[in-house]
């Protein structure tokens, strides 16, 4: 019986993916992508990966969905609608890609069957006495802490690159029309405290069950956006305090790395007595950084307000070296 469900789910994901790729208008493409995201949450749950399911729902469908929808709503429709569906020019490469994908899948399946041996990484990770009890968080913040540090650096770099396109590196100049409809204001008064409670719960739960800093950060970004778009911009750091809020996660991780090197002698070595507390502190800082970062990415898509003289939006030199200074 479950085999039938799996095939159905796989077929649904495939159809959703093809529909997302071949949607005539970008707007419907985005909405179909959200449907694909929700189906993927089911797939992760079916494959026994609750952490990835949570992250898919909170980040890949939530944050990416917010980014895509805000990009679509503020966009002039492109000059010629991309009649992708009818023209064979689009279907042929997709057909070839599907065939190549099936071949690649075959190689993957055979490799897995040949490679299946004892002492897989997962079993080792489960037995390793990491600092926290939940194996995925142990892998993320203890066994492979350097990967997570570099990944936080990627997120920080992406946000800094996005902010670099705005006047003096912050979002202070971005126009945010306050949507003060009473229904929305009432919703915000109810939802934001609840979301903040969930953020705290995810943060603490991360060390013992699926959850953790990334999912909590995405929720915090959602709450921050709700506040920013309904007139309570003062509560959300978009001006002078935005760059520090974005880099605080990376700074915290680097401080932890340096600290463990000086105290425990090895970079990123988390010993049991203080390890769990260090992980929790680090995750708290990561939540703030990911929340501020994702919210900044959504808001950074909006243009700066034009000052009197229409200076170019990016405050970099207008052209590479059109006129070298004296």
């Amino acid at each position: 019986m479950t085999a039938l469900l799996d095939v159905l789910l796989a077929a649904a994901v495939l159809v959703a993916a093809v529909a997302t790729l071949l949607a005539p208008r970008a707007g419907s493409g985005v909405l179909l992508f959200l449907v694909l995201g929700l189906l993927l949450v089911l797939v992760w749950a079916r494959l026994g990966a609750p952490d990835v399911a949570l992250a898919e729902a909170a980040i890949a469908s939530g944050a990416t969905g917010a980014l895509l929808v805000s990009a679509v709503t503020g966009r002039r429709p492109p000059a010629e609608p991309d009649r992708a569906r009818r023209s064979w020019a689009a279907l042929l490469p997709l057909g070839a890609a599907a065939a190549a994908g099936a071949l690649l899948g075959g190689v993957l399946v055979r490799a897995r069957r040949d490679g299946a041996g004892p002492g897989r990484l997962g079993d080792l990770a489960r037995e390793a006495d990491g600092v926290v009890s939940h194996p995925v968080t142990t892998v993320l913040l203890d066994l492979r802490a350097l990967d997570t540090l570099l990944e936080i650096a990627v997120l920080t770099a992406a946000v800094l690159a996005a902010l670099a396109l705005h006047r003096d590196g912050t979002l202070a100049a971005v126009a945010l029309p306050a949507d003060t409809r009473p229904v929305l204001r009432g919703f915000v008064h109810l939802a934001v405290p609840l979301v903040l409670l969930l953020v705290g719960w995810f943060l603490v739960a991360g060390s013992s069950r699926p959850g953790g800093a990334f999912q909590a950060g995405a929720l915090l970004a959602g709450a921050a956006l709700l506040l920013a778009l309904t007139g309570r911009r003062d509560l959300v750091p978009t001006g002078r305090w935005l760059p520090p809020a974005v880099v605080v996660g990376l700074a915290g991780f680097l401080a932890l790395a340096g600290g463990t090197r000086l105290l425990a002698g090895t970079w990123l070595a988390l010993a049991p007595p203080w390890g769990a507390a260090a992980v929790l502190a680090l995750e708290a800082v990561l939540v703030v950084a990911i929340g501020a970062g994702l919210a900044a990415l959504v808001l950074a898509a909006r243009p700066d307000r034009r000052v009197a003289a229409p200076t170019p939006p990016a405050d970099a030199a207008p052209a590479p070296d059109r006129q070298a200074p004296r």
Partner: protein
Amino acid sequence: MADLLLLPVLLPLAGAVATAVLPWRRTVGLTVAAAQLGFAVAAVVAVLRDGPLRGSPGGWEPPLGIALRLDGLGAAVGLLAAVVVLAVLGHAVARPAAAGGPSAWPLTLVTVAGLQAVLVSGDLFTTYVALELMTVGAVGLVALGGRRALAPALRYLCVAVLGSFAFLVAVALVHARTGTLTLELAAGALPPGPALGTVLALATVGLGVKAVLAPLHAWLPDAHAAAPTTVSPLLSALVVKGSLVVLVRLWSALGGHAGLAVVLAVLGSGAVLWGGVLALRQDRLKRLVAYSTVAQVGYLVLLLPLALPALDPAAPDGARTGALLAWEGALLLLLAHGLAKAALFLAAGTLVGVAGGDRVADLAGTATRAPMVVLTFGVAGACLAGLPPSLGFTGKWRMLEGAVTSGAWWAVAVLLVGGLLTASATARVLGVALRPDPDPAAARRGVPAGARWPALTLAVLAVGTGVGSAWLVDLLLVGAVPAG
């Protein structure tokens, strides 16, 4: 031991955090660059003295933890990166307009950290994350070039991330087949077969996109034409090198693949010839230099087919020595290209500023106005073309020797014609620059000293290291599979 591996990665990240928040961007940036040079020299000495450096952060030994490994090639490219970044930041301090604004500092340091993480990572997934870090930093830097640079930056981001996904599937395949993510442990455990072929094909496509391998290079010339002056050297001399280093390491660790080697031989030769011809026909200076990067990457990819016999122990001795020579020559060329191309781009950016236009025709008379910058351009061009006594010549000569002993005559032809094309492209620019000044009376903007010396030092280094390059060859062989 892990200090020398992790400090060069974590310090630039700390520098990026500091420059993103604090106002003293120049002092922090320059001190971090100087420290990176110190670490690079220390790492080279350590690698020469007692072989590849190993370490595992968090105290978790591989296969569970992350394996860090710095071999000779990694230490050499690390030294190259430190020298180029110091010169580029010196140039940026002297001509702020060429740097693309205050946000260039944190993004440059992030890109440097990404490259250093790629060099020290012995774990395939950490390599993937490090490549992404380098890509995001580089895209941010290109986008600083103003309105014309946004579309190329977006194109580069989409294509590079797609390449990373291909590399990630290759990593997943290696993990599925060998049960480990550490390259050294996976090396012996992946038998030749469809899995190995797919891993190498996916990795070659994925990394080929980022390393500007011929048919996948479309994004580079546009990105260079619009990027600020100080970004182009980082892009061509460093970001491209990072992907090449990973490709060389993957090929040599997993044993290479005969069929794919033929494809790469064809693509590499095509890149050398086609890139050279296109470089000749460009009328914009920066695009000319960008296409010469595509040509030079063609040389470096020829390393994989030429060095294939060195990877399998069953090959006859004649082929093995030839392959070893080709391996050393190509890696010397990789270093020479890094130094010379950085000098070329810095000089080109300054010349565009002095001439007031980025077309080659606008350069008329710049020899009189900025003699040292044109001299730098000439010296760097000579090194790229492989004229003695430069490092490029030593590398190309060794590659020619290797090709001759292993009987790859097509490679000899490609190497010679490629050198000719690069030399003629440089000569064309010098010819225009040496023309008499069309309007000598017009007011001229002088070139600040800080913009002249960094590029010239890079060019002189490119020539100087060619003379006594024995230590460099020994360094490149440390921990390399063909030598083992």
